[in-house]
């Protein structure tokens, strides 16, 4: 695909597919499996054609999330590099014993005898009226598990480069794809891989730092564009990974802007935004004039469009809160 300005572009779901294909081409140890991923190509149409290209290295499975996660674990510690799709991130609790108690602990508890290189891809996030059990972001369940890496790309280009890096990584990686991003089209990645655990400053500014991950980064960038029209100069940091957590990049940004808001699609209690804010205040209090979070209400995710729209952070809310916190709420526009 090509944009009007000649920049080569790619759809997010295609970028994920091409990343899997590229790593399968590169390394015969990579295998890919999950429910409806092979013959049908996945419920979000992410993986059509891979079965044809790679034969029995791509296969469909029963609806048995615990067995699939354990299968990926057992395969990973005996020489394969499995990529497993858990269709909706809401189904991850079914797989958690293997992910948390087997895969995440293997390297350390074995006395560093063998790594556990596996990737669990999963579709997460709200905004599609899927209801409470098909819309969650699983980060609070995963982020507190040492040994597990958690990655959530914001753009198609990053999805490609981060997924290739995740497949090459020697640790279990949860790779979280926001459902509302599958159809976005972005410039292709200029690099083959991006390092896991490194955040990126995706917009530079001097007044306030907006921090998010996945779809939240795009919301922050839209809010920043709106705020620029009001004379507020936002810096936007895309965390890209939530474990390891690149606090250094955020602290550098905060040292410049002295204000930070962390935007999370999820609850405040037990969420990554509040955790990051805690680290920032512990390590960078001297740089902070203001620090807060924008998160979701402490309820399950509602279904009705009016309820769900109100539930989720969006660019308008981010822009409004930044304007208020900076004491500019009543300033005339422009």
């Amino acid at each position: 695909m090509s944009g009007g300005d000649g920049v080569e572009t790619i759809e997010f779901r295609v970028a994920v597919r091409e990343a899997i294909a590229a790593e399968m081409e590169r390394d015969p140890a990579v295998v890919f499996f999950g429910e409806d991923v092979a013959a049908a190509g996945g419920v979000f149409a992410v993986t059509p054609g891979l079965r044809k290209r790679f034969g029995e290295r791509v296969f469909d499975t029963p609806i048995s999330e615990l067995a699939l996660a354990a299968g990926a674990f057992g395969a990973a510690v005996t020489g394969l590099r499995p990529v497993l799709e858990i269709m909706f991130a809401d189904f991850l609790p079914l797989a958690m014993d293997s992910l948390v108690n087997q895969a995440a602990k293997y390297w350390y508890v074995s006395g560093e005898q063998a790594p556990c290189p596996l990737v669990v891809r999963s579709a997460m996030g709200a905004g599609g009226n899927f209801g409470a059990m098909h819309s969650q972001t699983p980060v609070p369940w995963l982020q507190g598990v040492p040994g597990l890496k958690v990655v959530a790309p914001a753009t198609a280009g990053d999805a490609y480069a981060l997924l290739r890096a995740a497949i090459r990584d020697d640790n279990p990686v949860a790779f979280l794809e926001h459902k509302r991003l599958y159809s976005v089209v972005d410039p292709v990645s200029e690099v083959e891989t991006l390092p896991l655990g490194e955040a990126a400053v995706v917009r530079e500014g001097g007044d306030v730092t907006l921090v998010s991950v996945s779809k939240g980064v795009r919301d922050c960038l839209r809010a920043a564009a709106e705020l620029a029209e009001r004379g507020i100069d936002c810096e936007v940091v895309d965390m890209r990974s939530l474990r390891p957590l690149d606090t250094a990049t955020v602290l550098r940004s905060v040292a410049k802007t002295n204000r930070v808001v962390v935007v999370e699609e999820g609850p405040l209690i037990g969420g990554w935004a509040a955790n990051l804010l805690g680290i920032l205040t512990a390590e960078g209090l001297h740089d902070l004039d203001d620090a807060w979070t924008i998160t979701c209400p402490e309820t399950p995710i509602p279904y009705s469009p009016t309820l769900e729209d109100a539930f989720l952070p969006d660019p308008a809310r981010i822009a409004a809160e930044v304007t208020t916190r900076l004491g500019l709420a009543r300033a005339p526009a422009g």
Partner: protein
Amino acid sequence: MADARDLYRRMRLIRTFEDTVQSQFQQGNVHGTTHLYSGQEASGVGVCSMLRDGDKVAGTYRGHGHALALGVSPQKLMDELLGRASGACGGRAGSMNVVDVEHGLIGCFGIVGGSIGAATGAALTQKLRGTGAVAVAFFGDGTANQAYFHECLNWAQVERLPVVFVCENNLYMEFTPIEAVTAGAIAARPMAMGIPTQKVDGNDVFAVREAAGEAIDHARSGRGPAFLETLTYRFVGHSRSDPGRYRKPGELDAWKGRDPLVLARRALAEHWGVEPERLDEIDAEVAGELEEVVARGLAAPFPDPAAGGREFA
């Protein structure tokens, strides 16, 4: 391990090792908790004696026997339980989570059913790579009621994975009689999925070997998983804090009459003409070996917290 006396020695090693662990626990040198394999030795030794280099094994939290049956060093295992840097996992694993990649022990799993999942995944590797190796999952009767059991048996059968599921039925799910919490027969479950299934006297190491040989051959041939139920009994409580008051009167004594070591002694005398004195010598050698193991283990340094450890590979 074709020599019948080697089977006896391996079982004696496990029994003496477990007795030593119990004693060291009572002296405060082994920490946390332990789940001993005493009484079940013929199951692990019989199955592992039929494996080849390259085969993979997943054991349980009652896994000292699985590890020793596979050939893991008693010194490294004891050092691990004593929490020493020289342990199989540098003192990070303890009793329930031992890994020894070199000996094909992909892990012992502290949570019921984990071994089934791990072996199923290991079998996936063997199938996709065409190695000709098999994976073995050891687990207890209580595991028949876990999701791992149902999900993995089904998946392994539809994918024709080279895995042998070994259910060590010691009659009790922790403190509860297995029949009180299990509908129907355990062996009926794999049979319903079309998995070749055998029930065998789990205290007779020779019977276990024969049945395991058939199950392993089936898995290695590419025809899919096999299931083996070894009927056995643990001579000790579920864990170190369990005196076993739930046992039926006379039950323990009856099973002690069928001690796998007693049965093996009898068979060695009857079929191989091995004199009891030869076996007494083995017992004494093993006892001496364990005394040295403990002495060395207690003298070994603890891991240095300052040395830390890396979260990621």
